[in-house]
């Protein structure tokens, strides 16, 4: 186990800078998830930590040792790849033991270690099978086993669940989380799936265009998003964003003046964010009213797409008594849970 520090980390390909001064401190044993859309630089950061990409400038420290110029093998890290990357010509036993090939351990100790890891991953009975004889989830477990066997300081996971079906992904998510609780090794996990990030991470690093947008616990990034990007990226369905104006001591939103306590200059343009969970179809009076354009039943709730004066918002209704398509509905909003952003998209505290 070790801490991991990124200091002013920059990556450029020729003159194109793709990562811009990344700073991050990861505590010993912490589970950190990098999340962001494709091309945001999360995998590049991970590959730089692994030593598979050169660092243009800045420093990477594992423990208190700068590892910028160390070979991947000298960094004492292990990585699980999106495509598993387990060797098809080797048995599960040899795949798991592959990381010990260069180790100076005695052969009996190596075998013992392989058996231990296989037992942790419930793969003991498959040790003599070839990867082609395993399911997707089992192959991913072999890949994790190969990473575990060396007892590395840091585990790196590069979108390891992307190729699994929804059910298996949920199961593996749980298994990885349990594994972390059991072995306690520092983990850096890259994903583009915000649900994975929210469910697994101790802290989430949200990235966009090579910049860190926010670092925080799942609760922090959900309840206190730093900007409109984070607000919309985290949470499903996405947060509703509405244009508003602070004028005459009231918040003018969707044609209504709502009372609010804000210390802003008069006539300030704002963006108001309301999560669909906080915008409910109400039988009584509400903040907005409009026509139901689409219904998405989810079982316990129904997502209701409502057209409010040419702007579509997502609200929630009971799964048992959803409104009719085309019906006129009023939407009640919990204004205390509203998120306010300035004209640059930055959150207003």
């Amino acid at each position: 186990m070790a801490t991991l520090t990124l200091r002013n980390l920059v990556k450029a390909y020729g003159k194109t800078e793709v990562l811009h001064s990344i700073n991050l401190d990861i505590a010993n044993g912490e589970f950190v998830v990098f999340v962001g859309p494709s091309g945001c630089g999360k995998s590049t950061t991970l590959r730089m930590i692994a030593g598979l990409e050169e660092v243009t400038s800045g420093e990477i420290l594992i423990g208190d040792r700068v590892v910028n110029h160390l070979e991947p093998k000298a960094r004492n890290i292990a990585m699980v790849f999106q495509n598993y990357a387990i060797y098809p010509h080797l048995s599960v036993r040899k795949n798991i033991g592959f990381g010990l090939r260069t180790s100076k351990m005695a052969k009996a100790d190596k075998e013992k270690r392989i058996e231990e890891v296989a037992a942790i991953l419930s793969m003991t009975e498959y040790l003599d099978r070839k990867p082609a004889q395993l399911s997707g989830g089992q192959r991913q477990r072999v890949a994790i086993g190969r990473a575990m066997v060396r007892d590395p300081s840091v585990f790196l996971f590069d979108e390891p669940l992307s190729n699994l079906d929804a059910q298996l992904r949920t199961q593996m998510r749980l298994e990885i989380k349990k594994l972390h609780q059991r072995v306690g090794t520092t983990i850096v996990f890259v994903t583009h799936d915000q649900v994975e990030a929210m469910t697994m991470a101790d802290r989430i690093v949200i990235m966009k265009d090579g910049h860190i947008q926010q670092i925080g616990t799942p609760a922090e990034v959900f309840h206190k998003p730093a900007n409109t990007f984070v607000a919309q990226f985290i949470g499903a369905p996405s947060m509703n964003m509405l244009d508003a104006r602070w004028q005459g001591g009231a918040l003018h939103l969707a044609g209504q003046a709502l009372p609010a306590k804000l210390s802003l200059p008069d006539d300030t343009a704002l963006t108001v964010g309301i999560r669909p969970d906080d915008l409910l179809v109400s039988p009584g009076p509400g903040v907005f009213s409009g026509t139901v354009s689409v219904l998405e039943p989810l079982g316990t709730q129904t997502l209701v797409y409502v057209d409010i004066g040419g702007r579509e918002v997502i609200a929630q209704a009971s799964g048992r008594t959803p409104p009719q398509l085309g019906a006129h509905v009023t939407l009640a909003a919990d204004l205390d849970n509203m998120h306010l952003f300035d004209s640059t998209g930055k959150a207003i505290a």
Partner: protein
Amino acid sequence: MSDTQIKASADALMRQRSTYKPPRDPVQIIRWTLLAMGAIVMVMPIVYMLSASIKYPHEMFDLNIIPREPTFENYIYVLADGRFIQWFINSLIIATVTTISAVFFDALVGYTLCKFRFRGRYFIFIAILSTLMIPTEMLILPWYMMSLHFGWLNSYWGIMFPGLMTAFGTFLMKQFFETVPDDFLEAARIDGLNEFQIWWSVAMPLVTPALSALAIFIFLGNWTAFIWPLIVTTDSALYTLPVGLTTFSVEQSVQWELIMTGAALATIPTLMVFLLFQRYIIRGVAMAGLKG
């Protein structure tokens, strides 16, 4: 329904089934006819070679496939003649060493050109490829001059050196290594293997089909090579089989039955090589370790 009735109706059903013939598809008939014709064209020379190898000289130019008086005397004569065994061994050594060397170096260079980024990589690849455009006949003179100056005439090395690495093999292996995902190599790099170990123990097993195909091509090419071994050797003890077999034809006559017997014996190693490697060619191992 009684047991007897059930049995009777089952029998009737079986009879119906056995007499049923699906309608013949004309396209299928044409396809099979063309394939059969192609097969006959391919197989006939081999059949005639085997037939001629068990004929007496006076029957040689009869076109009958089964000889009137079949004999194995030709085989006894050829095998008892020490020269044939010597040529066979020469061919075996030369084809085996050349195949091992060419497969090793072609795969090594192909992998390097495919998986490493370095200045001049593209230029080197084009330079290697461009040698494919030069006919062997044009290379024989420079090869001969080299052999003469370095003292390689009448030696195994002299026969083997032009084939120890091939441009075609390098090209083939480079293309095949493109199908090996970098994740495999990076995983091995993180696991602590050096670059040679990654090539040998991770990348090479993933391209077994290509290696097998290349090994067959190179072995057959060297086994049947004629012009260069003929030119570089004058000592009959160093002849390869194709060169040696020509000595069965003398100025006044050609001993076809002996040539055919030698040729029949010479096909045995090529058949063995093919049978040994062909199962690897059809086995696609590269993708099995990736997402399912």
